[in-house]
């Protein structure tokens, strides 16, 4: 039976949205007959070091990350740089490689250039590319109870199960889990109307008020004269 290593590349570590999603992929993998995967958090020094070693030992690696400024977080890029010696090993010596990219934006389009980079990265290692799970709206996972996301969890378990059975994620399931690729003209028109409604800002406003920072919410400390 193939071994699976799940790498959580979120700087938030265990409490991250990336980990919440990765955990469901793991459930599907086990349900599909795979052995319990090893889970490592790059945000921890020990987890990072172990992840460099695990890459050389695993049959399959899934690297999950949040989208930071429309690319990978610096933490993930550090990990990729640490793996540079693995580009020199013989063909077939590196694990099959897949990815999970989740972002706070609702559309998958924000993550596509990174997906292209990750696909090339798999080629750089001579690895079998098993696919990239792209999902928008990730920050909402922090706001909503787990039971409200059951449809997403089911999609992710299915992808994990496919990985165990077929050795890769299904193309149709990847399209489905991505949700909105880009908003239609009608949806955009609606979004322009609702984006300024208080309900759209309640998450941020609630935290600003809780932290006593509400009055400072439009602060522009590095160019005070240019404040909006």
């Amino acid at each position, binding site marked *: 039976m193939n071994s699976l290593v799940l790498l959580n590349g*979120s*700087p*938030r570590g265990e409490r*991250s949205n990336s980990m919440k999603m990765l955990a469901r992929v793991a459930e599907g993998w086990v349900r599909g007959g795979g052995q319990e995967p090893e889970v490592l958090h790059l*945000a921890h020094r020990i987890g990072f070091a172990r992840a460099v070693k695990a890459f050389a030992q695993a049959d399959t690696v899934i690297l999950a990350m*949040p989208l*930071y*400024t*429309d*690319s*990978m*977080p*610096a*933490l993930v*890029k*550090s990990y*990729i*740089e640490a*793996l*540079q010696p693995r*580009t020199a090993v013989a063909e077939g010596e590196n694990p099959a490689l897949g990815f999970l990219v989740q972002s706070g*934006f*609702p*559309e998958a*389009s*924000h993550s596509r*250039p*990174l997906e*292209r*980079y990750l696909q*090339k*990265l798999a080629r*750089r290692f001579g690895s079998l590319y098993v696919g990239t799970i792209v999902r928008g709206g990730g920050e909402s996972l922090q706001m909503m109870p787990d039971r409200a996301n059951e449809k997403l969890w089911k999609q992710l378990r299915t992808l994990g199960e496919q990985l165990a059975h077929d050795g890769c994620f299904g193309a149709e399931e990847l399209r489905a889990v991505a949700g909105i690729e*880009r*908003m239609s003209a009608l949806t*955009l028109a609606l*979004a*322009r109307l609702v*984006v300024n409604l208080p309900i*759209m*800002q309640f998450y*941020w406003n609630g*935290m*600003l008020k*809780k*932290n006593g*920072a509400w009055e*400072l*919410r*439009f*602060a*522009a*400390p*590095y*160019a005070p004269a*240019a*404040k*909006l």
Partner: protein
Amino acid sequence: MRISILNGDPDPSTAFQVYVHDFAQRLSASGHAVTTLDLREFNLKGCSGCWGCWVKTPGECAKRDDSATVCRAAITADLLLLASPLTMGFTTALLKRAADQMIPLIHPYFVVEDGEIHHRARYAKYPKLGLLLGAGGDCDAEDCEITTEMWRRMARDLKSQLVFAAVSDRSAQEVADEFARVA
């Protein structure tokens, strides 16, 4: 023009270091006010996704490090030039660490821009972005293209646009001449 250069090469002994500083001198000689930040000399702890810069200390990272210097250099410039060798097909983790810690420059509220949801501006004016990539290593033209596309999107996140992208496979003077034409 006020130009801030973020040099993301972690190795002080490379040819790219020499190239970046040579390029900066040529920009200065053309009359620009150039500030070069060698990021390897800065204490940047990296973004931990805590959102403190949006909901606790709006506009500022709560970490005690040098990210405020980077943010100030970025937002007060007319053009922010991101310089980095390509490693494993992308700009360095060092440059990315600085970029991740620039999110205090935008606001958490959402807006619709360019047909997508984005974050709202915090400042009235943002610098234009430029990209200077170090050639060589194991990276090819496709890597340059992918990297440029990702930074083009990063520019959009920063309420800006990528107006210049070049690779250090030409002389610094040639690249400076191109910069003068397009930036």
